[in-house]
């Protein structure tokens, strides 16, 4: 029974680690997308401000 427990634990732990890495990457990409959108909006606002001033 010990070998069965080792084999199943190995398989399940590998899937858990893969999922954890996926979740961390998803979090990073969400933050990156928010930051990029913010930068883009700020850049657009600055450009329209310049156009208005000109």
């Amino acid at each position, binding site marked *: 029974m010990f*070998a*069965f427990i080792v084999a199943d634990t*190995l398989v*399940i732990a590998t*899937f858990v680690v893969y999922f954890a890495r996926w979740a961390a990457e998803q979090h990073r990409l969400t933050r990156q997308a928010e930051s*990029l959108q913010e930068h883009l909006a700020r*850049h657009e606002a600055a*450009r329209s401000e310049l156009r208005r001033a000109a």
Partner: protein
Amino acid sequence: MSLRNRLHAACGLSAIAFVAVAVWMAACIAPTEQSMGDIQRVLYVHVSVAWLGLCGFAVMAVSGVGYLLTRNLRFDHWFQSAGELGWITSGLTLATGSIWAHEAWGTWWEWEPRLTASFVLWLIYCAILLVRGSLDDPHQRARIGGVLGVMGAADLPLVMMATRWFRGMHPVSPQMDPLMRWTLLVNVLAFTALFAWLITERRKQLRFRQSNDDLQRTLIGRMKCSHS
């Protein structure tokens, strides 16, 4: 959370619950095999991950052909996600098989046809992922990956038929108790459901990464324009 995301989360939770039921059946419901004893229970998870290793490569080969025909990077996202998970399950096949072999044959490894073909499949996975990882251009990565995936698929029939074409030590579809057969079927289906869910989520993530890269390029382009 949108309805679509909720549906994806529900699918994931169902797959996890299905795997829990499958493991419980393998540990508690399936009868103990008479000649091998409890070590035979490793077979349920071993066969499941071995099947997924082959499925991962088949998905890779099909999406590789899809990319080569259409030059659409969406196929490459399927290729990458199936490649990663196929590589993992192929490695787990070797590991769980070694655990079984150590108890059943008294050795961790034998260079017999099925084991050698499975090891070669894992090496092909490694080679494809390494080559892809070294390329920056997404289309070059997809093109070279697609060609290697299609060529590497030649190993699939060798892995599947090795026990029939060559004489070796690996067991060939042994006679099983109906309850054992059911347990095996439930395990294969449960791990396939988990695998399919993970591939889908990873593919979505790769698309998300690509849209972030596109947005970054747009931002850099606009900044360059306004500076000039």
